[in-house]
């Protein structure tokens, strides 16, 4: 099944249609888990199984071959996949950035005794990101440019979030980019935060989406619609019950509860935020991460259509 035709999913004996959804092991996954726990998916006739993958590069092919018909990836990854000609469509919002820098889930840190003391100092710095040519460097560059910093000399070094503090303390990099729960960890280690790069680059913007393949959506429009409806409820529920989000993360991702308490949560909004995709796509083109903006008529599975 290489993405040619869509396989139609069949309901099981219990009347529920089994649906695998792939997620990365980050805190973005809260609403999805809550949706399963609260029965939102079941009520829509879906039996959702959440599977964990390390990164978008493994999730996108599994979405394309419909092994996992729906999956999560950040907007930049999604746009890159589309840019390379993969049959990827946006389905629903996962998580968004607010407008309060203090509440941002993402931050750049330096050592307390670092010669870099302000945002301007980051020009020419070596910054650790989880992967290059992706959401991290894009938001950092945009945020810094918004603050009038020249980013042309910045170097990005890819590594796991968990390896970053050690690299920073050893001086292998000048600054690190931490997202939750690593932001909270960096905070607790006493590193100095310099900038909240999500809020300062794309405030009030959705940055993570659930995606599917066009072929699947065509063959299973009701399932996609059902997923969208359930996901909307889950996002709403998550917004109203931040404590439940933290709980489910503690349970499903096995993160230390005390640490989770110190984390900031994303903004969880229902629907499919097309404007954010356009904003990010424009910036991605500008920063050379995709060759051109996609055809916006083609890439959304609009709810209720």
């Amino acid at each position, binding site marked *: 099944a290489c993405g040619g035709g869509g396989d139609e999913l069949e309901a099981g004996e219990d009347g529920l249609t089994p649906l695998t959804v792939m997620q990365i092991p980050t805190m973005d996954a809260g609403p999805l888990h809550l949706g399963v726990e609260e029965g939102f998916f079941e009520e829509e006739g879906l039996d959702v199984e959440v599977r964990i993958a390390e990164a978008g590069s493994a999730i996108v092919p599994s979405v394309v071959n419909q092994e996992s018909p729906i999956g999560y990836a950040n907007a930049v990854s999604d746009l890159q996949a589309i840019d390379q000609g993969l049959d990827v469509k946006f389905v629903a919002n996962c998580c968004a950035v607010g407008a309060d820098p203090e509440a941002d889930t993402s931050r750049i840190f330096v050592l307390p005794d670092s010669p870099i003391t302000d945002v301007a100092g980051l020009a020419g710095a070596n910054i650790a990101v989880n992967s*290059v040519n992706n959401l991290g460097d894009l938001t950092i560059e945009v945020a810094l440019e918004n603050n009038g910093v020249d980013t042309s000399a910045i170097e990005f070094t890819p590594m*796991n979030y968990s390896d970053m503090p050690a690299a920073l303390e050893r001086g292998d990099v000048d600054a690190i980019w931490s997202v939750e729960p690593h932001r909270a960890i960096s905070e607790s280690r006493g590193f100095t935060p310099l900038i909240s790069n999500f809020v300062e680059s794309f405030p009030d913007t959705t940055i993570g989406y659930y995606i599917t393949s066009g072929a699947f959506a065509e063959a299973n429009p009701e399932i996609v619609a059902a997923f969208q409806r359930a996901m909307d409820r889950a996002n709403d529920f998550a917004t109203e019950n931040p404590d439940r989000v933290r709980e489910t993360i503690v349970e499903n991702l096995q993160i230390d509860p005390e640490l989770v308490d110190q984390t900031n949560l994303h903004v969880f909004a229902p629907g499919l935020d097309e404007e954010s995709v356009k904003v990010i796509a424009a910036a991605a083109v500008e920063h050379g991460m995709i060759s051109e903006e996609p055809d916006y008529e083609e890439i959304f599975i609009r709810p209720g259509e």
Partner: protein
Amino acid sequence: MNRRTLLGLLGAVLALAVWWATSAGSTNVYYPPLPRVLDNLLEYWLGGAGTEHLLDSVRNLAVGLSIAVVLGIGLGMLVGQVRWLDRAVAPTFEFVRAIPATALIPFAMVLFGLGTSMKIFIIALGCFFPVLLNVIDGCRQLPATLLDTTRSFGITGWFRQLHVIAPAIYPRAAAGIRIAIPLALILVVTSEMTGSRIGIGFVLWTAQTSFNVVAVWGAILLLGILGLLLNLLFGAVERLTDRRYHRA
């Protein structure tokens, strides 16, 4: 040109032809037509920005592999012949051997920091074990009559190691090195997965996360070619030492 080379060339040409033919009209994004991959290989790796990455990787590979071979043969001969030493270190070796390089990288980073020495450590460690194990087993399986002979003439020490043990384990050590060579390439890539801004692996991982499939195939092609070349090189070395040991 002998039959062997001819057949080998034939095999390579056949494989390329199959690749070419099956990918020719491919619309599958993950399986791009071979000419595009070849373009990437020529333009990026051989003539363009990739050369710097290529050279860095090759240097790490050479250093790491050499360390592994020297240590593997040396320690292997020691451990293979000194029974209590084997007893003492075998479990520790087996423990370390089972840990994936990806899982070792954080520890290696703490030990060595980011950069070349960490990568070389990962490469050398991974390649060390196949050589070591083969040499140890080779020592174990020395023909008894041969050992009796050396003992009955009081051939001991360095001389025995150099003239009796080394040639006897030589085929096994070679087998270990043959296994280690492609492993070295794999570990080069793995070691550049994280904390690195240079190397074939870095290019490969970046291409992969941004779904640049042609670049991924280009890197794969490059790795395959490097493997072939290294293998040819080792074959030549093997024939040379073979002549030294078995004909001289």
